[in-house]
Each structure stands twice: as structure tokens, then as C-alpha cells.
């Protein structure tokens, strides 16, 4: 069977895991082509106009796959972190994504949407259930899962190796899909490099350290990715290596509307380095973004 995976949203974080797992079970994997204006616009035509940019982009990738694959892989990622008895969620739109796609795009092939709820069920078990549907050989499923986890870990380690550039280090605080630089998301990483800065993400810190500092500041927070962002920002406030921090948020992103604002408020109170908030959507012109980042870097230069 030929299984398509949309190159959008959480693919940027777990793509290697999913790809390797499915192909190890003897299925052909087709990743949708990198986003273009045409696919993006076709996606916009099928979804609500006030929904956030990553979801619109996801629609485009699904439409691009439709018709050339036998099934599309759209997991329901409910939580990615075990916090019981506390709650843990990704985001309502990610949770409802598969149902939204099914409701709004007619003539879809089969949708494979395993339920991944790490807070309720071990990830291994969720993948085992999915694997048994794709290839009913338990040994092969387990081996595929192990290989997939390793492939993802290797990929993460490789992308974490910095290019040892000199220049002011700028912390980027955002979701993985906002930093990927794939159309239609503006490529902030490239812009920063071009302007002579070194972009770093919160991945440079220990995850446990980030999450515990987020817990200390905002104990109720249960959105997994926002916890990483808040923890990363709190850690950056006192990191002397850093020259500044940029929070990148999507217009109409629910969690960011609260946490992005919260981070910039905390920064004003506690941070020794400057912080700024950039909001992006499909109308963001790169020239305007470059101007704002330039101004931010100039300001950092002048503070010295």
C-alpha cells in the first residue's frame, strides 16, 4: 500500500519517526512535495479563513497527496508528554485535525489516524496497535518502532549540531513548524543567518530542566509545546550566552495568543536580554519581517 504523509505541521517534528516506521513495515511512503503557492491556495479554499497558517498549509499538503496515494497518514496527536495525574494536551486543532480534514475534503482515500495520547497510553503501545494494522507481525512491528525512534533521534542530533558561526546568538522560541522555513512559513532562521546572527532553539537546553522551570512559573499549563516554549524562554532570560530572544507566533494561534504574550511580559520583568514577539500569517511579507529583525539586531548591537 502507498501511504502518504503530509509534509506539514508535526511532520517537522516527528517526520522521520513516522516515515521509518511505515516503510519498515513494508509499505511505500510518499511525502507530499514541498509547499508551493498553488497547493497552499488550494488548501485555503477548503478550510475556514480564520484558522491558523499551519492548518491551512496542512490542507494543501493533503490535497496534493489525494489521488496519488492509497491512504493518508493523519495521526491524532492528543498529548506527547506523560504528566499523570495532571493533564497534557497538544492543541485542540491538532487533536481535531483528522476529523476536520475528513469533514471538509470530499473524495479522500482511506485516512490512517492512530490515536497518540502519551498521557493516557504509552507511545509504544499506540504504535504497536497501528503497526499491527499495517503488518500483523509483532516482531517486525517492534523492530520497526525501534528503528523509527533511532532514525528520529539521529535526525534530531544532526539538526542540533550548530554550524559554529560567530555572531550574536538569538534564541528562537516557537513551534517546530514555525521554524522549518517551508513555504508558506517565512524562513526566520535563514533571515537571521543572512543578517549575521546565530539562531538557536530551545533544544539546546535539557528538556527536563525546561519543563520544571515552566512548572514553577505556570503550574496549570498543560499544552505540551507551550510548556517547552515557556520553559525555554525562562531559561534564556538568564543565559549570558544569548544576545536576544524572538518569540514567533501565528496569527490566530490559540495557545500562543496567551503564552506568547505571557513570555514577553515575563521577559520585561525578569530578563536580562531583550525579547520580541513576531506574529506571522499568510500575508506576512518577507521584506517587512527582515526590517523588523534588522531593527532588533541593531538594537542588540547598540546595547553593547
Amino acid at each position: 500500500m502507498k501511504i502518504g504523509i503530509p509534509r506539514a505541521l508535526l511532520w517537522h517534528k516527528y517526520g522521520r519517526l513516522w516515515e521509518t516506521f511505515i516503510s519498515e513495515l513494508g509499505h511505500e511512503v510518499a511525502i507530499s512535495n514541498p509547499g508551493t503557492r498553488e497547493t497552499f491556495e488550494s488548501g485555503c479554499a477548503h478550510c475556514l479563513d480564520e484558522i491558523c497558517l499551519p492548518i491551512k498549509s496542512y490542507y494543501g499538503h493533503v490535497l496534493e497527496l489525494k489521488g496519488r496515494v492509497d491512504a493518508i497518514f493523519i495521526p491524532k496527536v492528543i498529548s506527547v508528554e506523560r504528566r499523570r495525574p495532571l493533564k497534557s494536551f497538544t492543541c485542540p486543532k491538532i487533536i481535531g485535525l483528522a476529523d476536520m480534514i475528513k469533514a471538509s475534503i470530499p473524495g479522500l482515500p482511506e485516512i490512517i489516524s492512530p490515536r497518540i495520547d502519551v498521557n493516557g497510553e504509552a507511545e509504544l503501545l499506540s504504535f504497536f496497535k497501528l503497526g499491527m494494522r499495517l503488518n500483523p507481525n509483532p516482531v517486525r512491528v517492534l523492530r520497526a518502532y525501534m528503528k523509527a525512534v533511532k532514525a528520529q533521534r539521529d535526525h534530531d542530533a544532526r539538526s542540533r549540531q550548530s554550524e559554529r558561526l560567530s555572531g550574536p546568538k538569538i534564541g528562537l522560541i516557537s513551534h517546530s513548524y514555525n521554524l522549518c522555513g517551508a513555504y508558506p512559513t517565512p524562513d526566520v532562521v535563514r533571515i537571521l543567518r543572512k543578517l549575521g546572527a546565530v539562531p538557536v532553539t530551545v533544544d539546546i537546553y535539557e528538556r527536563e530542566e525546561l519543563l520544571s522551570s515552566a512548572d514553577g512559573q505556570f503550574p496549570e499549563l498543560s499544552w505540551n509545546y507551550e510548556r517547552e516554549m515557556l520553559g525555554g524562554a525562562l531559561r534564556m532570560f538568564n543565559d549570558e550566552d544569548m544576545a536576544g530572544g524572538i518569540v514567533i507566533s501565528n496569527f490566530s494561534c490559540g495557545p500562543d495568543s496567551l503564552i506568547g504574550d505571557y513570555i514577553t511580559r515575563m521577559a520585561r520583568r525578569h530578563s536580562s536580554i531583550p525579547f520580541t514577539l513576531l506574529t506571522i500569517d499568510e500575508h506576512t511579507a518577507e521584506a517587512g519581517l527582515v526590517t523588523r529583525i534588522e531593527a532588533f539586531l541593531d538594537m542588540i548591537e547598540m546595547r553593547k
Partner: protein
Amino acid sequence: MIITFPHFGYAYIAFSAAAESIGLEYVVPEKTGSRDIEEGSKLSPETICLPFKVNMGNILNAIKRGADTITFAGGVGPCRFGYYGRGIEAILRDRGINVKVLHLNQRDIPDAYRVLKEARCPKFSFINFVRGFIIMWQKAKAISQLENMKRKSMPYALRRSDVKRAFEAGLQRIDDASSLREVLRARKENRKSFGKIAKDAAKKPLKIGLIGEIFMILEPHVNMGIEDKLAEMGAEVHTVFSLHKWMKYIFHVDLFGKRSFRNLSRLAGPYLSENAGGESRNNVGSAILYAGEGYDGIIHMYPFTCMPGLVGHTVLNRVSRDLDIPILHFSIDEHFSEVGFDTRLEAFVDMLKNRKERQNAALSGN
């Protein structure tokens, strides 16, 4: 210590009864008005949902009137509502307004008990806490019952002013009741006064289901008085949401009957398999229920950028197509114009009337 709480429909009646019974001094913010929305929006993050901005406005108003402690009954779910308390606390601190925020978790009564105990209210005791809870529950039930009676009588009443008067008097009666016995008596009297209203039972109004985000549905200023407007146009409105229903849902006792949230979630299953927060599943479930019960149309209201609302909207488009029931969606923020709202509402009701006439003609023609 003088506490306050933001408005949530007529919930202030129930909340202030609870505060009274544990001996807390409290201030009720003025009834939500355009001024609150404007003031609240100035301080709030730009793209946060409307209820946050309205709550912010209410709280600013209450602080002006002397409140120094804010109680916030958040929950923890995938929707933003659970984090309003922290967000408002951070914003007020940045403004140099020093107030205490008591974070009460809706779903965690022992935790709420602890927070209130630590707040050192003069009359606080376990007995008074339980008493406060019971009277709050009963008042919520009385308010929700009153709202339902109003919805049922409006389209049939010969004079709508009678209904409005009975409703206002009923609210006052519930607010004045200071003991459990008096609340029960107020409920009885409310039923009686609604029974006396002259009605024309032969009327056949349009039946419209109102679904969406619970705050938008229960707060009459924020939803621009949609229920009264629909009643003026001669439609009967039904909604499954009420303060009492919400409390029942939170404490896991809303289990029975076809309008229970449990059943609505079950109904929504084929369209929305996961709980995407807020009322998304209940909304989809109610829409399916209304379609099955022969309602003429559905109105779905949610705040602009509401995450569960957007998931719900997308899925409801499919429900509308599959079950052949018209759904009008309103995504509302502080810039929403009432004139545009009225026009859309009128057009929708006109369309429903035509549709009904056509269906009736087709039926009698055969």
C-alpha cells in the same frame, strides 16, 4: 479582603450566594456593557478570545468599585479558558494594579477548599463551605430553569413584555432568597408566574437550536441579545447549555437523558472522535440531535479564534450537508457590529421561513 468574579450570564447570583455563606465580602461588577469590552480589550493580548477581554473588563470595573481579590474558576483542558486567571494576573501586575488572584480549579473541590481556607475568610468552615456549595448549586438550577421557561414562553406569549417582566421578577426572587428553603420557594413562584402569562398555543413558530461557546450563549450583552432578537422574529430558541448543566457536567453527574453531555458526545462520535476542548463535541452532538428532532435551523456562535469553535465549525459544515439542516455561524470579537449581526440573523430567519413553507407545500401537494 473583598473578592470579585467576572460575569458569566446570571451566574453572579449563584456565586454571590456562595460567597455570602462562607462570609466573604464581595463586589459584583456592573452588568457587562460595551464599555467593559472596550476597556478589557485595551489591556488584553490582541488575538486572545473575546471572553478573556470581557472578563478583563468586568474585573477592571470591580477593582474600581473596591475589589482587591479576584476569584477565577478555571479548569484545565485543551482550551484557553483554564489559563485566564494566570493571564489576567500577569497583565494586572504589569499595570501596577496589586490584586490577589485565587485560582480555583473547577474540577477539584478539595483544592478549591484549600485555596479558600488559606484565604482566611472570617466565617470559613467545612459546614459553611458545603452550605455555600449547595446554595450555589440550587440557585444555578433555579436560574437555568427560569431561562428555559423564558425561551419556551417568548414565541407563544400574547405580550412579550409580560414574559420579560416575569423573567426579571424571577431573577430578583432568586437573588433575594437567602436560604435553601427560600430558593425552592422562589422556583415554585417562578413557575407559577410563568403559568399565568397569556399564550397563544396555536402558534407554530420556527424552531432554532442555539449552540456554540457557553459564555457567548449565556452572556446576553456579548451575544447581542440573540435570544430576544430571535423571539421578536417569531422563532422558538432551544439550547442545551446552561449554568446548571455546566456544573453537572463538571462534577460528572450529567449522565442521563438524551440531552446529557455524555449522550451528546456519543452522538458526535462519528463526526468528531476526540474531545477537542470546550464544547466542540457537545455542539456537534446537539446539532445532530436538533436535525433528528426536526428543528428548522441552527445558530452556532463562538469567539473569534476560539480553537474548539473552529474545529466545531469545520465539522458542523459536514453535519449540515449530511443531515440537511441549515447552520448559521457567528465568529464574534470586540469589533463585531450589531447592525451586520441583525441583517444576517434576519436573512437567516427569512430563509428558514421560506424553506419551511416550501417543505409544507411539498408535503400537502402530495
